[in-house]
């Protein structure tokens, strides 16, 4: 049998291909050592030179190794352990004003050069269809630089037995405290990415993400009903140290809230009790309530209603057939007075925040990570952009929003961290709740749905507490809230201060055809929204 390899080609502009993102798996002790920098530079130079010689006006090369692991358990048993390792290179070029892309998993000087030449051939073929040449915002060459996610304990180096033991201990705690069933998982990602471009940049990055999570289920056999409660953890741009259960990393409240450190055993214990309590919780009376939204919940509302709505490719129509477009159109931005929210509402986009899923040193087209305002004092002031989009807004610099899920996929515009800035006046959650007459306090990520232009949304949660005359009176169930993005952010009436600021996030945000996943965090402090429509979701079948 001849050695077989895959070849993929993509053409213009933004997209991806339907290929396995982690194409080579290995056991726990597989090659952890990063590829030597000198070898990567030699390979990258081969591609840069080959494409330039064939007439490319711009070339970038991404050599990636992706080491991922997932561990899945239920109750007292391990269901699955999967390690994957993927290694290869993607070469993107501009020739005759058009994009071309080619990926290969055969990394020799000759094969990578041939792949680069093919990328040029594709770009030239596609140029015939191109109506406007690609215009890149300038990016100064950075020379040889490196960046690494600041982690204290590398998850790749933690023994499998330790991870299994922790998940099974969380399961045991849940079962002991009233759960009938518990499923727990640990996902870890390590992207070792080397980027080189004809701008003169050689960027070596070592990026880590981790996500411990579970679902506990409590069944009431008599009624035939069941209730669940999912983990309040956040997928995180941290190391295994996120799981160190450091008391300093959490906040007290009606239920423990985990900030910089996660205690999975404590959370599973309390989750089991809360799932059991949900059976006797009051079914919500539909109507208007003031909502107090914890960061573990609000992150997803931010993600859907602000993060996606301010992606420039959606605004321009490139995602119309799948993810949709956006209500935040260019005329609203040009007007400089579109009130996305009220004056309390400030959103910062960034790819720099420590502990966040979106944190990198440089994006996938060699642009240094930065932060910038998207919504300032409630007004839409900017979007999320890549190098080929900046000129559309008359700007001279990319925001560093380029990302590809693997070396095999072409990079395109993806969401940075988009976070709600905390309130400037001192305010705690307890003080916020004291001022609510008729409200609901919501924690955790639940059901979520939003329309294709990001107006109308509906969100559930994990925990719902009724607030009456400034006091929490008990747990509610069967509820979701519905609103309209602009109306919602204009109903924001108070934001807790910096002390309550916390990151939430999602591990696999999807976009593009074929779809690519990316990970992104959203920060906020606990925030109040007035008179939001709440529906009762109980049905009989």
């Amino acid at each position: 049998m001849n050695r077989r390899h895959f070849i993929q080609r993509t053409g213009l502009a933004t997209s991806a291909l339907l290929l396995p993102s982690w194409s080579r798996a290995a056991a726990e002790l597989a090659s952890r050592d990063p590829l030597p920098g000198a070898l990567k530079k030699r390979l990258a130079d081969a591609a840069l030179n080959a494409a330039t010689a064939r007439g490319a006006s711009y070339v970038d090369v991404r050599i990636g190794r992706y080491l991922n692991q997932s561990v899945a358990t239920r109750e007292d048993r391990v269901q699955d352990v999967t390690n994957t390792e993927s290694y290869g290179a993607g070469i993107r070029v501009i020739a005759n004003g058009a994009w071309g892309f080619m990926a290969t998993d055969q990394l020799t000087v000759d094969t990578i050069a041939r792949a680069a030449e093919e990328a040029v051939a594709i770009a030239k073929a596609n140029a015939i269809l191109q109506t406007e040449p690609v215009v890149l915002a300038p990016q100064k060459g950075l020379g040889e630089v490196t960046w690494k996610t600041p982690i204290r304990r590398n998850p790749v180096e933690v023994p499998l037995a330790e991870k299994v033991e922790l998940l099974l201990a969380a399961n045991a705690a849940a079962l002991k405290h009233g759960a009938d069933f518990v499923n727990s998982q640990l996902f870890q990602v390590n992207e070792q990415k080397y980027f080189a471009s004809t701008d003169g940049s050689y960027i070596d990055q070592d990026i880590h993400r981790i996500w411990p999570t579970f679902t506990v289920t409590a069944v009431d056999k008599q009624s035939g009903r069941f209730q669940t409660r999912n983990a309040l953890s956040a997928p995180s741009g941290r190391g295994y140290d996120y799981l160190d259960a450091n008391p300093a990393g959490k906040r007290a409240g009606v239920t423990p809230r985990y900030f910089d450190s996660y205690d999975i055993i404590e959370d599973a214990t309390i989750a089991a009790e809360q799932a059991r309590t949900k059976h006797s919780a009051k079914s919500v009376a539909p109507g208007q309530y003031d909502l107090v939204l914890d960061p573990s919940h609000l992150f997803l509302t931010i993600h859907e209603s602000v993060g996606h709505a301010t992606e420039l490719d959606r605004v321009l129509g490139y995602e119309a057939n799948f993810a949709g477009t956006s209500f935040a159109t260019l005329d609203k931005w040009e007007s400089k007075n579109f009130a996305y929210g009220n004056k309390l509402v400030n959103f910062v986009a960034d790819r720099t925040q420590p502990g966040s899923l979106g944190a990198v040193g440089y994006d996938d087209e060699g642009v240094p990570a930065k932060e910038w305002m998207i919504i300032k004092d409630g007004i839409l002031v900017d979007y999320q952009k890549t190098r080929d989009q900046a000129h559309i807004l008359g700007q001279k610099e990319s925001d560093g929003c380029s990302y590809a899920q693997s070396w095999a996929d072409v990079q395109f515009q993806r969401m940075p961290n988009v976070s709600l800035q905390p309130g400037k006046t001192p305010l705690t959650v307890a003080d916020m709740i004291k001022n609510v007459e008729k409200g609901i306090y919501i924690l955790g990520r639940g059901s979520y749905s939003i329309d294709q232009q990001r107006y109308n949304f509906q969100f559930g949660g994990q925990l719902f507490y009724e607030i009456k005359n400034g006091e929490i009176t008990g747990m509610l169930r069967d509820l979701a809230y519905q609103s309209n993005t602009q109306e919602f952010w204009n109903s924001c009436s108070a934001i807790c201060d910096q002390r309550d600021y916390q990151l939430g996030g999602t591990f696999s945000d999807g976009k593009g055809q074929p779809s690519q996943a990316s990970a992104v965090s959203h920060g906020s402090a606990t925030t109040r929204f007035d008179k939001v429509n709440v529906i009762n979701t109980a049905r009989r079948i």
Partner: protein
Amino acid sequence: MALLTESEAQALLQKVLSFSKADECEASLVGGTSGNLRFARNTVSTSGGSDTLTLDIQSTFGKRTGRARINEFDDASLAKAVRQSEELARLAPENPEYVSFLGPQTYLEPKAFVDATAATTPAQRAEAVAKSIAVCNQEGLTGAGYLDDNASFVAVANTRGLRGYQRSTGVGFSITIRTKDAKGSGYGVSDFNDIRSLDTEAVTRTAARKAKLSAETRAIEPGKYTVILEPAASVDLIGHMVSAMNARNTDEGRSFLSKPGGGSRLGEKIMDERVNIHSDPMHPELPGNKWSFDGRPQSRVDWIKNGVVTSMAYSRYWARKQGLSGEGTPPVSGGGVIGSEIGAFEGISGLIMTGGTASLDELIKGVERGVLVTRMWYIRPVDPQTLLYTGLTRDGTFYVENGEIKYAIKNFRFNESPVIMLNNLEALGRPQRANACLIPPMVVRDFTFSSLSDAV
């Protein structure tokens, strides 16, 4: 070219098994070629292709299992991958739910492979898309769409003597067309095994007509409406329902089929007696897979018959635990991705819901007052107990009065359970293929729209 023949694939798999030192070893190959073309703003935005071959190896010692995946096929790499799966198996704890691999099986022979699709060239793709873009330009509309085709194979072999090989092809085309002022939007979608059945121009004309028709919308109050659901609108809800018909979850008391006091609703009538849903790998319009992920042969399964729950899906472990034949029960399908944010996540494929002979237009003629729904979007579970789902209408929503489309209306958010939806059935039309299922257009009363959306 990674589309291996049966003998090439089996020779490779036998070589892999010859390297095994485990108690049991199973190896599978997935490979094939695919191509796609994406466009937006009436111009091509991406063209791509791939040629892949991947080997998965599962090794077991006692009840300890490890998996490895590789895409390199020289002898040294194959041996290394086998060793890696064995190494992981030794590190893994025992899984008390482990069931030994199956031995030799007899599989049906669905005709899922079409030479014409496998031979699709980039030029054909471009031509098909050019026809679509031409319609958009002629009509003064803006189109964004996606065409993809593939030819693939899967092969399996294990140390107990199981052997399997299957080839299949597929092509899909979808387009969203918007008016230049962005006030109207229409959708068209089509998928086949045989590319010769694909007519991108016809699909585009459907989407274009809906975009123009929906350019001026009126808002009507949310509430309960009779709806005419096109197959692309109902297919995901029906798919989610069938994929939730899992025996273990039901027996554990955490399914919509669980009964108070224990037990399941298997054998109970839970929806209108005209509802019949089955899967059949031998259906000529919807050829399916020969085997399930655990190697069991696929055959016809009646999930709902005359409104009665007639089957649930079992893993081999759970079937045995319940005293059933692990091999005689319908297999469990694969699941989705945890934490996925993507809209319209993948439902089950290969479902066939029988219907009548009426066309969509004939169904519309029979409706006094109602809402015609082209497509539903961002469908997400709200309550697994009742299978309540929420989502939105999209790309062509119309008010129907006295059997005619009167005007386009603003989109709605719905909160509805497919179980309630199929209980409130009024009429069924002629089934059409949508998202790799055969689903009839249908008229349903009292469908719950809970709020309005300004989205176009």
